[in-house]
Protein backbone atom coordinates (compact mmCIF):
# COMPACT_ATOMS: atom_id res chain seq x y z
CA UNK A 1 0.00 0.00 0.00
CA UNK A 2 1.53 3.36 -1.00
CA UNK A 3 1.58 6.39 1.25
CA UNK A 4 -1.36 8.12 -0.44
CA UNK A 5 -3.59 5.08 -0.11
CA UNK A 6 -2.70 4.72 3.53
CA UNK A 7 -3.38 8.44 4.12
CA UNK A 8 -6.78 8.12 2.43
CA UNK A 9 -7.58 5.00 4.44
CA UNK A 10 -6.55 6.62 7.72
CA UNK A 11 -8.58 9.73 6.92
CA UNK A 12 -11.75 7.87 6.02
CA UNK A 13 -11.42 5.69 9.09
CA UNK A 14 -11.14 8.78 11.31
CA UNK A 15 -14.09 10.45 9.61
CA UNK A 16 -16.23 7.48 10.52
CA UNK A 17 -15.32 7.88 14.19
CA UNK A 18 -15.47 11.61 14.95
CA UNK A 19 -15.55 11.20 18.73
CA UNK A 20 -12.37 9.16 18.61
CA UNK A 21 -10.85 11.85 16.45
CA UNK A 22 -11.95 14.60 18.85
CA UNK A 23 -10.46 12.69 21.80
CA UNK A 24 -7.19 12.18 19.94
CA UNK A 25 -7.04 15.87 18.94
CA UNK A 26 -7.74 17.00 22.51
CA UNK A 27 -5.00 14.71 23.75
CA UNK A 28 -2.51 16.14 21.22
CA UNK A 29 -3.49 19.72 22.09
CA UNK A 30 -3.11 19.04 25.80
CA UNK A 31 0.30 17.44 25.34
CA UNK A 32 1.68 20.20 23.16
CA UNK A 33 0.29 23.05 25.29
CA UNK A 34 1.45 21.53 28.58
CA UNK A 35 4.91 20.89 27.18
CA UNK A 36 5.05 24.41 25.80
CA UNK A 37 3.79 26.15 28.95
CA UNK A 38 4.65 24.19 32.08
CA UNK A 39 8.40 23.78 32.11
CA UNK A 40 9.73 26.76 30.20
CA UNK A 41 11.72 29.73 31.47
CA UNK A 42 9.04 32.10 30.21
CA UNK A 43 6.58 30.62 32.70
CA UNK A 44 8.79 31.00 35.75
CA UNK A 45 6.43 33.68 37.10
CA UNK A 46 3.64 31.13 37.48
CA UNK A 47 5.95 28.83 39.45
CA UNK A 48 6.92 31.72 41.69
CA UNK A 49 3.26 32.59 42.32
CA UNK A 50 2.65 29.00 43.41
CA UNK A 51 5.80 28.48 45.46
CA UNK A 52 6.27 31.80 47.31
CA UNK A 53 4.21 30.70 50.38
CA UNK A 54 5.97 27.32 50.34
CA UNK A 55 9.33 29.06 50.44
CA UNK A 56 8.19 31.25 53.35
CA UNK A 57 6.93 28.23 55.31
CA UNK A 58 10.13 26.34 54.54
CA UNK A 59 12.23 29.26 55.76
CA UNK A 60 10.05 29.52 58.85
CA UNK A 61 10.52 25.80 59.59
CA UNK A 62 14.28 26.04 59.11
CA UNK A 63 14.98 29.21 61.07
CA UNK A 64 12.32 29.08 63.80
CA UNK A 65 13.66 26.15 65.83
CA UNK A 66 12.23 27.12 69.21
CA UNK A 67 10.33 24.50 71.24
CA UNK A 68 7.11 23.94 69.41
CA UNK A 69 3.95 23.77 71.49
CA UNK A 70 1.45 21.23 70.10
CA UNK A 71 -1.33 23.58 71.19
CA UNK A 72 -0.14 25.89 68.44
CA UNK A 73 -1.54 23.50 65.82
CA UNK A 74 -4.90 25.23 65.93
CA UNK A 75 -3.27 28.61 65.42
CA UNK A 76 -1.18 27.32 62.51
CA UNK A 77 -4.30 25.76 60.99
CA UNK A 78 -5.73 29.27 60.78
CA UNK A 79 -2.49 30.55 59.28
CA UNK A 80 -2.66 27.81 56.63
CA UNK A 81 -6.32 28.67 55.97
CA UNK A 82 -5.29 32.31 55.53
CA UNK A 83 -2.52 31.38 53.09
CA UNK A 84 -4.85 29.24 51.01
CA UNK A 85 -7.98 31.36 51.12
CA UNK A 86 -6.45 34.82 51.00
CA UNK A 87 -3.30 34.24 49.00
CA UNK A 88 -3.94 31.28 46.73
CA UNK A 89 -7.65 31.69 45.99
CA UNK A 90 -7.66 35.48 45.77
CA UNK A 91 -4.27 36.22 44.27
CA UNK A 92 -2.00 33.29 43.33
CA UNK A 93 -4.41 31.13 41.37
CA UNK A 94 -6.21 34.21 40.07
CA UNK A 95 -3.13 35.81 38.53
CA UNK A 96 -1.61 32.52 37.37
CA UNK A 97 -4.87 31.61 35.60
CA UNK A 98 -4.92 35.09 34.11
CA UNK A 99 -1.46 34.49 32.66
CA UNK A 100 -1.97 30.88 31.62
CA UNK A 101 -5.45 30.98 30.13
CA UNK A 102 -5.35 34.35 28.40
CA UNK A 103 -2.06 33.29 26.76
CA UNK A 104 -3.60 30.16 25.25
CA UNK A 105 -5.21 32.11 22.39
CA UNK A 106 -4.13 35.73 22.77
CA UNK A 107 -0.50 34.76 23.32
CA UNK A 108 -0.50 32.73 20.13
CA UNK A 109 -1.91 35.76 18.33
CA UNK A 110 0.94 37.86 19.70
CA UNK A 111 3.49 35.21 18.68
CA UNK A 112 1.75 34.85 15.29
CA UNK A 113 1.41 31.10 15.60
CA UNK A 114 -2.33 30.60 16.06
CA UNK A 115 -2.86 30.04 12.33
CA UNK A 116 -1.09 26.68 12.57
CA UNK A 117 -3.92 25.40 14.75
CA UNK A 118 -6.60 27.18 12.75
CA UNK A 119 -5.34 25.42 9.61
CA UNK A 120 -5.59 21.96 11.17
CA UNK A 121 -8.72 19.85 10.65
CA UNK A 122 -9.91 20.60 14.17
CA UNK A 123 -13.30 21.92 15.16
CA UNK A 124 -12.94 25.25 16.95
CA UNK A 125 -14.85 23.84 19.93
CA UNK A 126 -12.30 21.02 20.20
CA UNK A 127 -9.55 23.66 20.14
CA UNK A 128 -11.22 25.52 23.04
CA UNK A 129 -11.68 22.36 25.08
CA UNK A 130 -8.17 21.08 24.39
CA UNK A 131 -6.53 24.36 25.31
CA UNK A 132 -8.74 24.77 28.38
CA UNK A 133 -7.84 21.31 29.64
CA UNK A 134 -4.15 22.02 29.03
CA UNK A 135 -4.40 25.27 31.01
CA UNK A 136 -6.33 23.50 33.77
CA UNK A 137 -3.71 20.74 34.00
CA UNK A 138 -0.88 23.30 34.23
CA UNK A 139 -2.65 25.36 36.88
CA UNK A 140 -3.85 22.38 38.89
CA UNK A 141 -0.44 20.69 38.78
CA UNK A 142 1.28 23.89 39.97
CA UNK A 143 -1.10 24.84 42.75
CA UNK A 144 -2.10 21.40 44.00
CA UNK A 145 1.58 20.64 44.55
CA UNK A 146 2.12 23.98 46.23
CA UNK A 147 -0.93 23.65 48.50
CA UNK A 148 0.09 20.11 49.38
CA UNK A 149 3.62 21.32 50.20
CA UNK A 150 2.22 24.13 52.39
CA UNK A 151 0.07 21.61 54.24
CA UNK A 152 3.00 19.23 54.82
CA UNK A 153 5.29 22.04 56.00
CA UNK A 154 2.63 23.41 58.37
CA UNK A 155 2.10 20.14 60.24
CA UNK A 156 5.46 18.42 59.87
CA UNK A 157 7.11 20.79 62.34
CA UNK A 158 4.80 19.49 65.10
CA UNK A 159 6.19 15.95 64.83
CA UNK A 160 3.94 13.26 66.28
CA UNK A 161 1.27 15.81 67.26
CA UNK A 162 1.16 16.99 63.69
CA UNK A 163 0.91 13.41 62.36
CA UNK A 164 -1.86 12.70 64.81
CA UNK A 165 -3.73 15.89 63.71
CA UNK A 166 -3.44 14.90 60.07
CA UNK A 167 -4.16 11.17 60.20
CA UNK A 168 -6.34 10.81 63.32
CA UNK A 169 -7.89 14.27 63.34
CA UNK A 170 -9.45 16.59 60.78
CA UNK A 171 -6.15 17.23 58.90
CA UNK A 172 -6.53 14.80 56.02
CA UNK A 173 -10.12 15.91 55.38
CA UNK A 174 -9.02 19.54 55.34
CA UNK A 175 -6.26 18.69 52.84
CA UNK A 176 -8.82 16.98 50.58
CA UNK A 177 -11.09 20.02 50.74
CA UNK A 178 -8.26 22.42 49.94
CA UNK A 179 -7.08 20.30 47.01
CA UNK A 180 -10.64 20.09 45.66
CA UNK A 181 -11.14 23.84 46.04
CA UNK A 182 -7.77 24.52 44.40
CA UNK A 183 -8.70 22.41 41.39
CA UNK A 184 -12.10 24.08 41.13
CA UNK A 185 -10.54 27.54 41.46
CA UNK A 186 -8.28 26.72 38.50
CA UNK A 187 -11.26 25.52 36.45
CA UNK A 188 -13.44 28.51 37.39
CA UNK A 189 -10.89 31.28 36.90
CA UNK A 190 -9.48 29.45 33.87
CA UNK A 191 -12.85 29.38 32.10
CA UNK A 192 -13.43 33.07 32.85
CA UNK A 193 -10.00 34.16 31.57
CA UNK A 194 -10.22 31.99 28.48
CA UNK A 195 -13.52 33.67 27.59
CA UNK A 196 -12.11 37.14 28.34
CA UNK A 197 -9.14 36.47 26.05
CA UNK A 198 -11.56 35.69 23.23
CA UNK A 199 -13.62 38.80 23.95
CA UNK A 200 -10.88 41.39 24.45
CA UNK A 201 -7.55 42.00 22.71
CA UNK A 202 -6.08 43.10 26.03
CA UNK A 203 -7.65 41.03 28.81
CA UNK A 204 -5.69 42.81 31.59
CA UNK A 205 -8.32 45.51 32.17
CA UNK A 206 -11.30 43.13 32.29
CA UNK A 207 -9.10 40.88 34.48
CA UNK A 208 -8.63 43.74 36.93
CA UNK A 209 -12.37 44.35 36.86
CA UNK A 210 -12.93 40.68 37.60
CA UNK A 211 -10.59 40.91 40.58
CA UNK A 212 -12.65 43.86 41.79
CA UNK A 213 -15.86 41.92 41.30
CA UNK A 214 -14.55 38.88 43.18
CA UNK A 215 -13.58 41.20 46.05
CA UNK A 216 -16.83 43.11 46.36
CA UNK A 217 -19.21 40.28 45.38
CA UNK A 218 -20.09 39.49 49.03
CA UNK A 219 -21.87 42.82 49.39
CA UNK A 220 -24.22 41.94 46.53
CA UNK A 221 -27.48 39.93 46.76
CA UNK A 222 -27.26 36.18 46.93
CA UNK A 223 -28.05 35.57 43.23
CA UNK A 224 -25.28 37.96 42.16
CA UNK A 225 -22.78 36.33 44.51
CA UNK A 226 -23.34 33.05 42.69
CA UNK A 227 -21.70 34.58 39.64
CA UNK A 228 -18.37 34.82 41.43
CA UNK A 229 -15.84 32.01 41.73
CA UNK A 230 -14.93 32.82 45.34
CA UNK A 231 -18.55 32.35 46.42
CA UNK A 232 -18.29 28.63 45.70
CA UNK A 233 -14.70 28.28 46.96
CA UNK A 234 -15.65 29.74 50.33
CA UNK A 235 -18.14 26.96 50.91
CA UNK A 236 -15.55 24.31 50.18
CA UNK A 237 -13.03 25.66 52.70
CA UNK A 238 -12.92 23.54 55.87
CA UNK A 239 -11.75 26.39 58.13
CA UNK A 240 -13.72 29.60 58.48
CA UNK A 241 -11.50 32.58 58.92
CA UNK A 242 -12.72 34.98 61.59
CA UNK A 243 -14.01 38.26 60.17
CA UNK A 244 -12.06 40.84 62.04
CA UNK A 245 -9.51 43.53 61.48
CA UNK A 246 -8.23 44.24 57.98
CA UNK A 247 -9.02 40.67 56.93
CA UNK A 248 -12.71 41.47 57.09
CA UNK A 249 -12.65 43.25 53.74
CA UNK A 250 -11.35 40.11 52.04
CA UNK A 251 -13.55 37.57 53.77
CA UNK A 252 -16.60 36.33 51.93
CA UNK A 253 -19.92 36.60 53.75
CA UNK A 254 -22.30 34.44 51.79
CA UNK A 255 -25.46 32.47 52.37
CA UNK A 256 -24.39 28.92 53.24
CA UNK A 257 -24.63 26.24 50.56
CA UNK A 258 -23.64 22.59 50.84
CA UNK A 259 -20.24 21.51 49.47
CA UNK A 260 -22.08 19.42 46.86
CA UNK A 261 -23.96 22.50 45.61
CA UNK A 262 -20.71 24.50 45.69
CA UNK A 263 -18.88 21.93 43.54
CA UNK A 264 -21.79 21.60 41.16
CA UNK A 265 -22.32 25.37 41.03
CA UNK A 266 -18.71 26.09 40.18
CA UNK A 267 -18.60 23.34 37.56
CA UNK A 268 -21.82 24.68 36.00
CA UNK A 269 -20.36 28.20 35.99
CA UNK A 270 -17.16 26.96 34.31
CA UNK A 271 -19.07 24.89 31.73
CA UNK A 272 -21.43 27.78 30.91
CA UNK A 273 -18.47 30.10 30.32
CA UNK A 274 -16.72 27.44 28.22
CA UNK A 275 -19.82 27.06 26.05
CA UNK A 276 -19.77 30.83 25.60
CA UNK A 277 -16.08 30.59 24.60
CA UNK A 278 -17.01 27.99 21.98
CA UNK A 279 -19.31 30.57 20.41
CA UNK A 280 -16.77 33.38 20.76
CA UNK A 281 -13.97 31.49 19.03
CA UNK A 282 -15.96 31.37 15.80
CA UNK A 283 -15.62 35.17 15.62
CA UNK A 284 -11.85 35.01 15.91
CA UNK A 285 -9.93 35.77 12.70
CA UNK A 286 -6.21 35.61 12.06
CA UNK A 287 -5.36 39.28 11.62
CA UNK A 288 -2.01 39.55 13.33
CA UNK A 289 -1.43 43.09 12.16
CA UNK A 290 -4.41 44.22 14.23
CA UNK A 291 -2.88 42.80 17.44
Amino acid at each position, binding site marked *: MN*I*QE*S*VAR*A*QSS*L*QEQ*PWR*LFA*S*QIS*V*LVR*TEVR*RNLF*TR*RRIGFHLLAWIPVLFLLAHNIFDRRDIDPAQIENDTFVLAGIIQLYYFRLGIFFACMGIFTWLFRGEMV*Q*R*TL*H*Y*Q*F*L*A*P*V*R*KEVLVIGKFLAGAIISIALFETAVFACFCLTYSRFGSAGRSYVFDGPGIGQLGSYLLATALASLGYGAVFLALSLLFKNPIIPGAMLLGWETIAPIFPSWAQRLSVTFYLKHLCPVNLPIEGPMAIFTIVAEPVSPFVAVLGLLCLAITILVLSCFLIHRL*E*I*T*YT*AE
Partner: protein
Amino acid sequence: MTHDARQIVFDNVSKFYGEVLGVNKVNFSLDPGITSLVGPNGSGKTTLMNLLTGLIKPSRGAIYVLGLTPQQPIEFFRQVGYCTQFDSFPPGTNGYDFIYWPLRLHGFGHDQSTKLTEEALERAGMAQVARRKVAGYSKGMRQRIRLAQAIAHHPSVLVLDEPLNGLDPMARSESIALFEAIAKQGMHVIISSHILEEVDRISDRVVLMSSGYVVAEGQIKEVRREVRDHPMQILVRCSNAAKLASAAFELDHVVEAKILSDGQSVLVRTRDAEQFSLLLNRIVSAGLVEVDAVAPADDDVNSIYQYLIGSDGSPT
Protein backbone atom coordinates in the same frame (compact mmCIF):
# COMPACT_ATOMS: atom_id res chain seq x y z
CA MET B 1 -22.72 30.80 -9.31
CA THR B 2 -22.55 27.11 -10.13
CA HIS B 3 -19.52 25.12 -9.11
CA ASP B 4 -18.34 21.56 -9.18
CA ALA B 5 -16.52 19.59 -6.55
CA ARG B 6 -13.15 19.91 -8.30
CA GLN B 7 -13.15 23.68 -8.44
CA ILE B 8 -12.24 26.52 -6.12
CA VAL B 9 -14.99 29.10 -6.35
CA PHE B 10 -15.07 32.72 -5.19
CA ASP B 11 -18.68 33.83 -5.37
CA ASN B 12 -18.94 37.63 -5.16
CA VAL B 13 -16.50 37.79 -2.24
CA SER B 14 -15.68 41.04 -0.50
CA LYS B 15 -13.66 41.63 2.63
CA PHE B 16 -13.46 44.89 4.53
CA TYR B 17 -11.32 45.57 7.58
CA GLY B 18 -13.54 48.20 9.13
CA GLU B 19 -13.58 50.83 6.42
CA VAL B 20 -10.45 49.54 4.72
CA LEU B 21 -10.97 47.46 1.60
CA GLY B 22 -9.29 44.06 1.53
CA VAL B 23 -10.78 42.65 -1.65
CA ASN B 24 -13.98 43.58 -3.43
CA LYS B 25 -16.48 41.64 -5.54
CA VAL B 26 -14.18 38.77 -6.38
CA ASN B 27 -15.79 36.28 -8.75
CA PHE B 28 -13.92 33.43 -10.33
CA SER B 29 -13.53 29.69 -10.30
CA LEU B 30 -10.32 27.74 -10.62
CA ASP B 31 -9.69 24.31 -12.08
CA PRO B 32 -6.84 22.08 -10.90
CA GLY B 33 -3.37 23.17 -11.94
CA ILE B 34 -1.05 25.99 -10.97
CA THR B 35 -2.69 29.38 -10.51
CA SER B 36 -0.64 32.43 -9.72
CA LEU B 37 -1.92 35.45 -7.87
CA VAL B 38 -0.03 38.45 -9.13
CA GLY B 39 -0.23 42.04 -8.01
CA PRO B 40 1.70 44.74 -6.18
CA ASN B 41 1.99 44.87 -2.40
CA GLY B 42 -1.36 45.64 -0.80
CA SER B 43 -3.33 44.48 -3.83
CA GLY B 44 -5.16 41.83 -1.79
CA LYS B 45 -3.28 38.62 -2.65
CA THR B 46 -2.72 37.53 0.95
CA THR B 47 -6.26 38.56 1.89
CA LEU B 48 -7.56 36.36 -0.91
CA MET B 49 -5.45 33.43 0.30
CA ASN B 50 -6.51 33.95 3.91
CA LEU B 51 -10.14 34.02 2.79
CA LEU B 52 -9.64 30.87 0.76
CA THR B 53 -8.24 29.01 3.76
CA GLY B 54 -10.74 30.33 6.29
CA LEU B 55 -8.25 32.32 8.38
CA ILE B 56 -10.50 35.32 7.83
CA LYS B 57 -14.17 35.42 6.93
CA PRO B 58 -15.64 37.24 3.95
CA SER B 59 -17.73 40.33 4.71
CA ARG B 60 -19.88 39.32 1.74
CA GLY B 61 -20.09 36.34 -0.60
CA ALA B 62 -18.99 32.74 -0.23
CA ILE B 63 -15.98 30.58 -1.01
CA TYR B 64 -16.10 26.90 -1.90
CA VAL B 65 -13.03 24.74 -2.08
CA LEU B 66 -13.79 21.42 -3.77
CA GLY B 67 -17.38 21.96 -2.68
CA LEU B 68 -16.36 22.47 0.97
CA THR B 69 -16.24 25.53 3.21
CA PRO B 70 -14.07 26.21 6.29
CA GLN B 71 -17.23 25.72 8.37
CA GLN B 72 -16.61 21.99 7.79
CA PRO B 73 -13.07 22.09 9.24
CA ILE B 74 -12.39 18.36 9.42
CA GLU B 75 -13.11 17.67 5.76
CA PHE B 76 -11.91 21.09 4.56
CA PHE B 77 -8.46 21.19 6.16
CA ARG B 78 -7.70 17.62 5.14
CA GLN B 79 -7.92 18.90 1.57
CA VAL B 80 -6.08 22.18 2.07
CA GLY B 81 -2.45 22.94 2.89
CA TYR B 82 -1.45 26.57 3.37
CA CYS B 83 2.12 27.83 3.55
CA THR B 84 1.60 31.34 4.89
CA GLN B 85 3.89 34.33 4.72
CA PHE B 86 4.03 34.56 8.53
CA ASP B 87 7.63 33.79 9.41
CA SER B 88 6.83 32.67 12.95
CA PHE B 89 6.99 29.31 14.70
CA PRO B 90 5.93 27.89 18.05
CA PRO B 91 8.75 28.75 20.48
CA GLY B 92 11.34 26.05 21.02
CA THR B 93 10.11 23.76 18.26
CA ASN B 94 12.40 21.80 15.96
CA GLY B 95 11.76 21.03 12.30
CA TYR B 96 10.59 17.48 12.93
CA ASP B 97 8.10 18.36 15.68
CA PHE B 98 6.83 21.27 13.62
CA ILE B 99 5.53 18.77 11.09
CA TYR B 100 4.87 15.76 13.29
CA TRP B 101 2.48 17.33 15.83
CA PRO B 102 0.13 18.96 13.31
CA LEU B 103 -0.12 15.54 11.65
CA ARG B 104 -1.13 14.06 15.00
CA LEU B 105 -3.75 16.83 15.14
CA HIS B 106 -5.00 15.58 11.79
CA GLY B 107 -5.74 12.34 13.60
CA PHE B 108 -2.89 10.25 12.22
CA GLY B 109 -1.32 7.74 14.61
CA HIS B 110 2.32 7.82 15.63
CA ASP B 111 3.58 5.47 12.89
CA GLN B 112 1.65 7.19 10.12
CA SER B 113 2.67 10.64 11.34
CA THR B 114 6.31 9.58 11.50
CA LYS B 115 6.15 8.23 7.96
CA LEU B 116 4.44 11.36 6.60
CA THR B 117 6.82 13.65 8.49
CA GLU B 118 9.87 11.92 7.07
CA GLU B 119 8.40 11.97 3.58
CA ALA B 120 7.58 15.70 3.77
CA LEU B 121 11.04 16.52 5.12
CA GLU B 122 12.59 14.55 2.28
CA ARG B 123 10.46 16.28 -0.36
CA ALA B 124 11.36 19.71 1.00
CA GLY B 125 15.03 18.81 1.31
CA MET B 126 15.03 19.32 5.08
CA ALA B 127 15.64 15.78 6.34
CA GLN B 128 19.24 16.47 7.36
CA VAL B 129 18.42 19.41 9.63
CA ALA B 130 15.03 18.28 10.92
CA ARG B 131 16.17 17.81 14.53
CA ARG B 132 17.61 21.30 14.79
CA LYS B 133 15.61 24.09 16.44
CA VAL B 134 13.70 26.17 13.88
CA ALA B 135 15.02 29.31 15.61
CA GLY B 136 18.47 28.43 14.23
CA TYR B 137 17.30 28.00 10.63
CA SER B 138 18.12 30.41 7.80
CA LYS B 139 15.24 32.22 6.09
CA GLY B 140 15.27 29.75 3.21
CA MET B 141 15.18 26.78 5.60
CA ARG B 142 12.26 28.31 7.49
CA GLN B 143 10.47 28.77 4.19
CA ARG B 144 11.08 25.14 3.25
CA ILE B 145 10.04 23.72 6.61
CA ARG B 146 6.74 25.63 6.33
CA LEU B 147 6.33 24.20 2.84
CA ALA B 148 7.03 20.72 4.22
CA GLN B 149 4.32 21.19 6.83
CA ALA B 150 1.82 22.40 4.22
CA ILE B 151 2.34 19.34 2.00
CA ALA B 152 2.81 16.72 4.74
CA HIS B 153 -0.83 15.56 4.85
CA HIS B 154 -1.08 15.27 1.05
CA PRO B 155 -3.59 18.06 0.46
CA SER B 156 -5.54 18.42 -2.77
CA VAL B 157 -5.26 22.20 -2.60
CA LEU B 158 -1.90 23.74 -1.83
CA VAL B 159 -1.90 27.48 -1.15
CA LEU B 160 1.51 29.15 -1.09
CA ASP B 161 2.02 32.78 -0.14
CA GLU B 162 5.30 34.02 -1.64
CA PRO B 163 6.83 30.53 -1.44
CA LEU B 164 9.98 31.47 -3.35
CA ASN B 165 10.97 34.32 -1.04
CA GLY B 166 14.31 33.79 0.62
CA LEU B 167 15.18 30.69 -1.37
CA ASP B 168 18.51 30.36 -3.15
CA PRO B 169 18.35 29.55 -6.90
CA MET B 170 18.82 25.81 -6.30
CA ALA B 171 16.07 25.61 -3.65
CA ARG B 172 13.87 27.81 -5.83
CA SER B 173 14.22 25.48 -8.75
CA GLU B 174 13.58 22.42 -6.53
CA SER B 175 10.48 24.08 -5.06
CA ILE B 176 9.14 24.89 -8.51
CA ALA B 177 9.71 21.31 -9.60
CA LEU B 178 7.80 20.18 -6.51
CA PHE B 179 4.86 22.51 -7.30
CA GLU B 180 4.77 21.23 -10.86
CA ALA B 181 4.83 17.62 -9.68
CA ILE B 182 1.94 18.30 -7.28
CA ALA B 183 -0.06 20.06 -10.01
CA LYS B 184 0.54 17.14 -12.40
CA GLN B 185 -1.20 14.88 -9.89
CA GLY B 186 -4.40 16.83 -10.59
CA MET B 187 -4.18 19.08 -7.56
CA HIS B 188 -4.65 22.79 -7.14
CA VAL B 189 -1.54 24.84 -6.47
CA ILE B 190 -2.21 28.51 -5.80
CA ILE B 191 0.86 30.68 -5.60
CA SER B 192 1.34 34.34 -4.92
CA SER B 193 4.65 35.68 -6.05
CA HIS B 194 6.49 38.78 -7.09
CA ILE B 195 8.95 36.79 -9.20
CA LEU B 196 7.05 37.10 -12.45
CA GLU B 197 9.50 35.20 -14.63
CA GLU B 198 9.07 32.09 -12.53
CA VAL B 199 5.33 32.56 -12.18
CA ASP B 200 5.16 32.82 -15.94
CA ARG B 201 7.11 29.64 -16.42
CA ILE B 202 5.05 27.43 -14.14
CA SER B 203 1.52 28.88 -14.15
CA ASP B 204 -1.43 27.41 -15.99
CA ARG B 205 -3.39 30.57 -15.26
CA VAL B 206 -3.04 33.88 -13.47
CA VAL B 207 -5.22 36.10 -11.33
CA LEU B 208 -4.05 39.69 -11.58
CA MET B 209 -4.97 41.87 -8.64
CA SER B 210 -4.78 45.58 -8.01
CA SER B 211 -6.14 47.61 -5.08
CA GLY B 212 -8.37 44.77 -3.90
CA TYR B 213 -9.90 44.05 -7.29
CA VAL B 214 -9.29 41.20 -9.69
CA VAL B 215 -8.31 43.00 -12.90
CA ALA B 216 -7.84 39.92 -15.06
CA GLU B 217 -8.06 36.19 -14.62
CA GLY B 218 -7.55 33.15 -16.82
CA GLN B 219 -4.88 31.46 -18.89
CA ILE B 220 -2.01 33.81 -19.63
CA LYS B 221 -2.57 33.79 -23.41
CA GLU B 222 -6.31 34.42 -22.99
CA VAL B 223 -5.66 37.29 -20.64
CA ARG B 224 -3.16 38.75 -23.08
CA ARG B 225 -5.71 38.58 -25.90
CA GLU B 226 -8.18 40.42 -23.68
CA VAL B 227 -5.75 43.32 -23.29
CA ARG B 228 -6.78 45.01 -26.53
CA ASP B 229 -5.44 48.45 -25.62
CA HIS B 230 -1.91 47.20 -26.08
CA PRO B 231 -0.90 45.77 -29.50
CA MET B 232 0.60 42.30 -29.30
CA GLN B 233 4.28 41.98 -30.00
CA ILE B 234 5.38 39.20 -32.33
CA LEU B 235 8.98 38.38 -33.01
CA VAL B 236 9.72 36.86 -36.44
CA ARG B 237 13.14 35.53 -37.39
CA CYS B 238 13.42 35.21 -41.16
CA SER B 239 15.73 35.33 -44.19
CA ASN B 240 14.67 38.83 -45.32
CA ALA B 241 13.67 41.11 -42.48
CA ALA B 242 13.30 44.24 -44.60
CA LYS B 243 10.83 42.62 -47.01
CA LEU B 244 8.75 41.23 -44.15
CA ALA B 245 8.73 44.61 -42.40
CA SER B 246 7.53 46.45 -45.49
CA ALA B 247 4.79 43.84 -46.13
CA ALA B 248 3.66 44.12 -42.54
CA PHE B 249 3.46 47.92 -42.72
CA GLU B 250 0.84 47.66 -45.46
CA LEU B 251 -1.59 46.16 -42.95
CA ASP B 252 -3.81 48.59 -41.01
CA HIS B 253 -3.61 46.70 -37.75
CA VAL B 254 0.19 46.72 -37.66
CA VAL B 255 1.33 49.74 -35.67
CA GLU B 256 5.05 49.05 -35.71
CA ALA B 257 7.51 46.78 -37.50
CA LYS B 258 11.03 47.11 -36.19
CA ILE B 259 14.08 45.38 -37.65
CA LEU B 260 16.27 44.26 -34.77
CA SER B 261 20.02 44.73 -34.58
CA ASP B 262 20.82 41.20 -35.80
CA GLY B 263 19.24 42.17 -39.16
CA GLN B 264 17.34 38.89 -39.34
CA SER B 265 14.53 39.54 -36.86
CA VAL B 266 11.48 41.77 -37.01
CA LEU B 267 9.47 42.84 -34.00
CA VAL B 268 5.92 43.48 -35.14
CA ARG B 269 3.32 45.22 -32.95
CA THR B 270 -0.16 44.42 -34.18
CA ARG B 271 -3.73 44.81 -32.99
CA ASP B 272 -4.79 41.66 -34.84
CA ALA B 273 -2.40 38.76 -34.40
CA GLU B 274 -4.55 36.37 -36.45
CA GLN B 275 -4.55 38.64 -39.51
CA PHE B 276 -0.80 39.03 -39.19
CA SER B 277 -0.25 35.27 -39.11
CA LEU B 278 -2.38 34.97 -42.32
CA LEU B 279 -0.09 37.52 -43.96
CA LEU B 280 2.91 35.57 -42.80
CA ASN B 281 1.47 32.39 -44.32
CA ARG B 282 0.90 34.15 -47.64
CA ILE B 283 4.45 35.52 -47.74
CA VAL B 284 5.95 32.15 -46.90
CA SER B 285 3.74 30.36 -49.47
CA ALA B 286 4.79 32.86 -52.12
CA GLY B 287 8.44 32.10 -51.32
CA LEU B 288 9.26 35.75 -50.63
CA VAL B 289 10.93 35.04 -47.30
CA GLU B 290 11.91 31.96 -45.30
CA VAL B 291 10.70 32.07 -41.72
CA ASP B 292 12.90 30.42 -39.08
CA ALA B 293 10.84 31.21 -35.99
CA VAL B 294 7.72 33.08 -34.85
CA ALA B 295 7.16 33.79 -31.18
CA PRO B 296 4.93 36.12 -29.21
CA ALA B 297 7.11 38.60 -27.38
CA ASP B 298 4.74 39.85 -24.73
CA ASP B 299 2.23 37.19 -23.76
CA ASP B 300 3.96 36.66 -20.45
CA VAL B 301 2.85 37.63 -16.99
CA ASN B 302 5.34 40.47 -16.79
CA SER B 303 3.96 42.19 -19.88
CA ILE B 304 0.35 41.67 -18.84
CA TYR B 305 1.22 42.99 -15.42
CA GLN B 306 2.76 46.10 -16.94
CA TYR B 307 -0.19 46.68 -19.25
CA LEU B 308 -2.90 46.13 -16.67
CA ILE B 309 -1.36 47.29 -13.43
CA GLY B 310 1.00 49.83 -14.81
CA SER B 311 4.17 49.14 -12.83
CA ASP B 312 7.17 47.13 -13.86
CA GLY B 313 6.25 44.16 -11.71
CA SER B 314 9.61 43.99 -10.08
CA PRO B 315 9.81 42.82 -6.48
CA THR B 316 9.00 45.55 -3.99
